[in-house]
């Protein structure tokens, strides 16, 4: 494993986008940053710039307007990247399945690596999801390298 891979797996930078959530999940993501859950002890940093990010956390149902922004953010992120869908809305639309302006879960727009169910998921679940996404990202990177070699 190269130095960059190690650095990435030990210190993933996350980007958060709210595609149409009720704020519950967003606040829980922010709560992860605070002293009680303190994700920085795992090297996880929340960042505003998509070009610096490794993991994209998406909350909420996707509508047409936010799908465009979401796609845009995802395309700007450098490879390798992972997407974590957080909360029942991001997974399937959840309680908003009857709403007219809902396209469904995040996986209708982007490939999702890890699904974190719950409404709203506990910060523990979110951290667990990010850790899982890192594992998947690494696996994929290894597979790519093996394929290239």
């Amino acid at each position: 494993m190269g130095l960059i891979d190690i650095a990435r797996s030990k210190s993933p930078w996350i980007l958060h986008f709210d595609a149409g959530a009720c704020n519950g999940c967003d606040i829980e993501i922010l709560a992860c940053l605070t002293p009680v859950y303190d994700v920085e002890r795992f090297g996880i940093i929340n960042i505003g710039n998509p070009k610096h990010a490794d993991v994209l956390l998406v909350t909420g149902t996707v509508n047409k307007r936010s799908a465009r922004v979401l796609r845009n953010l995802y395309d700007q992120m450098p490879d390798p990247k992972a997407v974590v869908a957080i909360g029942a809305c991001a997974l399937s639309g959840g309680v908003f399945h009857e709403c007219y302006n809902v396209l469904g879960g995040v996986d209708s727009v982007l490939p999702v690596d890890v699904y974190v169910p719950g409404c709203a998921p506990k910060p523990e679940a979110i951290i667990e999801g990010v850790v899982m996404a890192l594992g998947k990202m690494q696996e994929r990177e290894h597979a790519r390298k093996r394929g290239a070699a």
Partner: protein
Amino acid sequence: MTEAARPPIAPVCDVQPTRPVSVGDLVAAVEAMAARRLRFVTATCLDMGGRFDIYYHFADGVKLDNLLVTIPREAELPSITAVYLGAFLVENEMKELFGINVVDIAIDYKGRLFMTELDQPHPMAKVQSGATPAGQGE
């Protein structure tokens, strides 16, 4: 309704008092509300099939004072943003979601407040103008 049992709560929050006004008198009635220094709360639009019932809610201290305008579908509704600028969001919302022809809104989003051009027009309306998408209407 058994309203008498809880005197402090019920009278304050009901739709009473509601004063019906005609479309032509709406702006004048709203100006009268402004002269009394009432705070504009919001407007509520109900699609009754052939007509729209539109309530305008104003706060008089802790009490509410309401106006009710009934207009036929396709009719024009004057904007009250010249009096209460705060109404611009709700009027744009009515225009987009119900398809009410609200004219002269101060900040007009041209029926594109919430949704994109790709979406079906007026999702809240019970009768769809033009093609009715499946699952719409009652």
